[in-house]
């Protein structure tokens, strides 16, 4: 090959540009790391002093020293559990339908494409919109079966752990279902990506050996996609636990001294509790808010670590 067309001067400039690009990338990366370090550092300095075991048990209080995150933490756990139970089966099921059952008829295919487009768009809808949707649909059920004070249908009494009512009212289940709406598009898209990453040769091998489509999904595709699906789902749950806006609409309360006893019980979540503390006049409460942030961050990091662990544990070479 003839490289004579390149002059040394131009080569120098190319190398200079290369160096410049690397330096720019490093500045960008270190700036974002620096911001994170400052954030974490200031929160740890402010909040660590208040962090002890009783902080997890105590209820909100007018005295900063006695304030705890107990009800909010349990509220978050209940709501996220309800959200996971609703969103994960629905999301993974939808992803399987969209990826593994591609229709052949042209008009069904168009419907299929329309569905896909909508899911992608829904992922970008601000969460407060889902909050208002959840308020109308789950909390009030369009007002067709009584109102929240006078529910049209009840099962058991509020003292039973299995108490159920329609409309759902401002309870844990309504909150969980609303959060499920928020994270559903994320779960679907992540699961689709995971399923798409499974090589077609596996599917073809299964089908060629006489497996039905159910057997193929159950025994080949789904197990191979589990690490990806789990990673996506757990990241979606991390998002759910940090959501404040839709919970503000649904829960409507920030002061609560008891943990939920059933799915219709009132609740609050950690982000709302932190927001509330940060807005109080006493500076001691701002430190309590920082402690709350530490707990929330710890829960989030645990979730993310779990996601990484599952990916490492289950990821095996496909060939």
């Amino acid at each position: 090959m003839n490289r004579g067309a390149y002059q040394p001067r131009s080569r120098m400039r190319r190398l200079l540009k290369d160096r410049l690009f690397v330096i720019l990338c490093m500045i960008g990366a270190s700036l974002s790391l620096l911001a994170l370090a400052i954030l974490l550092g200031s929160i740890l300095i402010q909040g660590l002093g208040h962090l002890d075991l009783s902080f997890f048990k105590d209820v909100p209080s007018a005295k900063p020293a006695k304030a705890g995150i107990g009800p909010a933490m349990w509220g978050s756990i209940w709501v996220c559990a309800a959200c996971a139970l609703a969103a994960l089966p629905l999301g993974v099921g939808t992803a399987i339908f969209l990826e593994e059952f591609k229709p052949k008829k042209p008009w069904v295919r168009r419907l299929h494409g329309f569905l896909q487009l909508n899911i992608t768009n829904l992922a970008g809808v601000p969460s407060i919109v889902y909050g208002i949707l959840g308020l109308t649909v789950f909390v009030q059920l369009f007002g067709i079966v009584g109102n929240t004070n006078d529910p049209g249908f009840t099962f058991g009494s509020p003292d039973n752990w299995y108490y159920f009512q329609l409309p759902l009212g401002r309870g844990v289940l309504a909150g969980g279902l609303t959060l499920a709406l928020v994270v559903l598009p994320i779960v679907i898209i992540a699961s689709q990506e995971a399923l798409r990453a499974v090589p077609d040769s596996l599917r073809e091998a299964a089908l060629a050996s006489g497996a039905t489509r159910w057997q193929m999904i159950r025994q080949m595709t789904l197990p191979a996609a589990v690490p990806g699906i789990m990673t996506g789902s757990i990241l979606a749950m991390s998002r759910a636990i940090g959501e404040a806006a839709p919970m503000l609409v649904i829960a409507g309360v920030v002061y609560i001294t008891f943990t939920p006893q059933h799915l219709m019980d009132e609740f609050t979540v950690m982000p709302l509790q932190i927001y509330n503390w940060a807005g109080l006049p006493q500076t001691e409460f701002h430190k309590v808010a920082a402690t709350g942030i530490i707990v929330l961050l710890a829960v989030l990091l645990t979730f993310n670590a779990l996601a990484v662990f599952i990916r490492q544990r289950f990821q095996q070479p496909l060939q």
Partner: protein
Amino acid sequence: MNRIFTSAALGASVLIVSAVACGLQQPDLKNLSGSIKIDGSSTVYPITTAVDEAIREAGSRIKVTVGLSGTGGGFKRFVVGETDISNASRPITKDEVEAAKKNSVDFIELPVAYDGLSIVVNKSNDFVDYLTMVDIKKIFGAEAPAKTWSEVRSDWPNAPIKVFSPGTDSGTFDYFKEVVVGKEGKIRSDMQVSEDDNVLVTGVARDKNAIGFFGYAYLMENQDKLKVVPVDAGKGPITPTHQTIESGEYAPFSRPLFIYVNKKSAERPEVKAFVDFYLANGPKIVEEVRYVKLPAAITERAKANWAKLRTGTQYLNDKGEKVSGPLSKVYN
């Protein structure tokens, strides 16, 4: 004179009645369960939650939840019967009363504390000695708002004014607006606005030429960072303190805070016990959370109205017109 005497006598008798009632109630506080839903003003929130904390320390097992939807947002839920008690940093309005009537919600209006809207400037501001109502209107009103301090008073420096204000949806802003420019007037729009009062505190503390206003509790917590401005409303400059707010001297910026109780809820034993406790221990708790307690005479009137479940608001007259004036005149 006669009137004072009868109200005192009434107050005393109510005191005895309520003391007896409390005495009877205290023992079975532990046996009460059930739940109470409360929502409304973020200004009243610290008082109501502190009351719940105290009643739980006394052994109550009532499940109380308190929301922070703001006075207006709280009333929206209250007038359809969704909540048992509504926290309010202003009296209920005509529209809200009509909505309640439509949903056949009757309510009892109970003042629980005073708050003093405090006007503050930067610590290093040494020229503002006090402000008259005219000065305040010049600074905050939308009609020819002062751009510099010298436009307010000519001997003040020719430095730009920076104005900080609570969110325009808050009861605090509503109250301030009505006092300064009246119901129809407008507050200037070129202000730094924040829903979070702590942001206002930091803003005024940082800017030498800043002025702002917020609730008394925020002033108490930040006295070392800010300089409070005495207000002259015709009777000489008055600084907001416990005494001046309680006595009504700090008019018109001392404002009453209320709770509104749904009458149907009031028949439930847990709601009755909670409000009894609120009125009996309110004055002490109010001081603890840095608000100003009501004069004893007004607390007694509230107790009397609660005892006989007197419904309706006293801030609207028979024709449905708004009544304004100091709490001691309006509320009886």
